[in-house]
């Protein structure tokens, strides 16, 4: 495969926010008038990465980890405290307007639509702002309507739209000028499954058709699994993982859950599986509920067939269920500090 060109370069990017300490209560408010104790928050510290043209990158992290701050620096809204970032060769916060013409953004919690005007007005205004030609406008509107379906409510005032309608319209508005980069900051927040799916399909199709680079932050890991081949995980302002989903799964996703429904539970109850497989508690845990026995084990130490054959020796098996680790569980463990991050480095 030919390696495509790098579109976004981020080098040692950091952002600090300075605020002043607030003291509680009325007394505290008075105190706050006279003493100003600086509190420095390192929202983003020293992160570096490159993103190629046409990639869809999932950018994940817990609340307040620094995702949005990074996106805002890449879109030219915030000026970094140190480090550098270029998008399509431009430094976004130095050439804000130039950069703005090649990016599109959807911030799930805000809208870029004209609140008090019919939706169609927003599109015509954006057409002028981005200087989109009549033919391009017509073609893109057709395409976007096909994937997002906003024709039915295009003449409604924006403030009367439902959240799902508004988000679809917002995504269309971000794409009208066919941006090189699309930043999506929690684009599926609060949406129902049908709309979520529509949004995902749209993002996929746009990426395919226009080779648009997409950077997506989300708390919905289904978004990630369905759209992204690469993920970056940020925690406490530091980039702790940057790589493919498969890689993170092979690194962390070693835990497998095997549920076996047996005919007779008593021989199972009598057996100490940890001893049989000489496995420690961290590598194998067993949970028994009525006739169902559940093994949670490390795939590196034990194999599924090993366990099944042992159980079959003891009794007859009625049913088997196997569950591999979901990316969501991995991420949950990373957020709560359950994984040794250094292993990835």
């Amino acid at each position, binding site marked *: 495969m030919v390696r495509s060109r790098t579109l976004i370069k981020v080098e040692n990017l950091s952002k600090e926010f300075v605020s002043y300490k607030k003291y509680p209560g009325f007394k505290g408010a008075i105190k706050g008038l006279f003493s100003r104790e600086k509190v420095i928050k390192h929202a983003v510290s020293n992160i570096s990465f490159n993103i190629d043209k046409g990639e869809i990158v999932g950018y994940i992290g817990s609340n307040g980890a620094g995702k949005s701050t990074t996106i805002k620096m890449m879109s030219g809204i915030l000026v970094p405290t140190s480090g550098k970032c270029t998008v399509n060769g431009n430094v976004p916060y130095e050439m804000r307007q130039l950069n*703005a013409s090649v990016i599109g953004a959807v911030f799930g*919690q805000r809208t*870029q639509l004209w609140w*008090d005007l019919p939706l169609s007005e927003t599109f015509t205004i954006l057409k002028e702002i981005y200087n989109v030609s009549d033919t391009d406008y017509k073609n893109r509107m057709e395409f976007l309507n096909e994937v997002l379906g906003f024709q039915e409510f295009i003449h409604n005032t924006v403030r009367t739209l439902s959240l799902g309608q508004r988000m679809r319209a917002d995504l269309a508005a971000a794409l009208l000028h066919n941006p090189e980069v699309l930043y999506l900051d929690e684009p599926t927040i609060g949406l129902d499954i049908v709309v979520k799916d529509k949004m995902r399909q749209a993002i996929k199709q746009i990426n395919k058709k226009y080779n648009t680079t997409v950077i997506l932050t989300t708390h919905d890991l289904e978004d990630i699994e369905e759209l992204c081949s690469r993920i970056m995980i940020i925690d406490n302002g530091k980039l702790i993982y940057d790589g493919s989903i498969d890689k993170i799964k092979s690194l962390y996703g070693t835990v497998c859950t095997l549920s076996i429904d047996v005919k007779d539970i008593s021989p199972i109850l009598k057996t100490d599986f940890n001893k049989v497989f000489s496995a420690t508690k961290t590598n194998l845990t067993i949970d028994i509920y009525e006739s169902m026995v559940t093994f949670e084990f490390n795939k590196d130490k034990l194999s599924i067939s090993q366990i099944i054959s042992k159980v079959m020796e003891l009794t007859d098996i009625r049913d088997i269920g196997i569950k591999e680790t979901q990316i969501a569980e991995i991420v949950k463990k990373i957020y709560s500090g359950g994984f040794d991050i250094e292993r990835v480095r």
Partner: protein
Amino acid sequence: MVMFKSHFLSHKLKIYKPFAIARIQEALSYKARFVLFIIARTFTVIITYYLWKAIYNSNGANTLAGFTKNEMALYIFMSFVTASIISVEVASWIGTDVVEGSIAINLIKPINYKTSLFFKALGDIVYNFFIPSIFIWIGILINQYVTLGELPPSITTHLLYFISLSFGFVLLFLFEYCFGMLAFYTSYIWGMRISKNAILAFLSGQIIPFTFFPNAIRVIFSYLPFASINYIPVMIYLNKVKGTELIKALTLQVVWIILLYILSRILWKKATKKLYILGG
């Protein structure tokens, strides 16, 4: 070159015109709010009128500080018309944008934030001009003719008034814009806005003509930028500023526009560095 320039301008106009039009449409969709606002303002001006009437009556004098009773009435109402036309709350728009974080949306568009605000303000002016200013103005003219037999001021006076009014608007816009930049530092400017409006009303001569003040204060006040917003246009309309005085007054307006423009650019540069988006 001229062709290029005019094309450039017409494109700019095409980009920013929607901001003005959207503002008018918004105003029309929140009619009740605007009507209430107008009623409140009209009450204030009527109270001010009766207050001055009482002052003149109790004093017994026909002329106070160079103003006859009728001139004073005209001053009050024209002051009101002027203030109503150019009243724009740019600082509070910026405040809301910063507090609600919607400034982020503005910054990801290839548009100039200040220009977009300027066009929004223009939209307000068009709206203000028709509702209610022009009607009050016509009322003033009719009243002058019917009760005093006075004809409206000459076309030249009107023209000069409009020029000065336009300068006043640009100045007020720039002042409001600079004031709005405070929102980037304090992130909440509502309280300050209230005091600003009170001070502005006083220093722009909207409440009391400067001629009532002691000489030294009068001179200082008339050189401050606030005089250019209201006092100068109204005095021009009343034909009280003439000849070299007039040229001086208009020049002063232009000088303040240039100075505030420079200040606004500096403040914007500084403010955007300070910016952090509230609410994620």
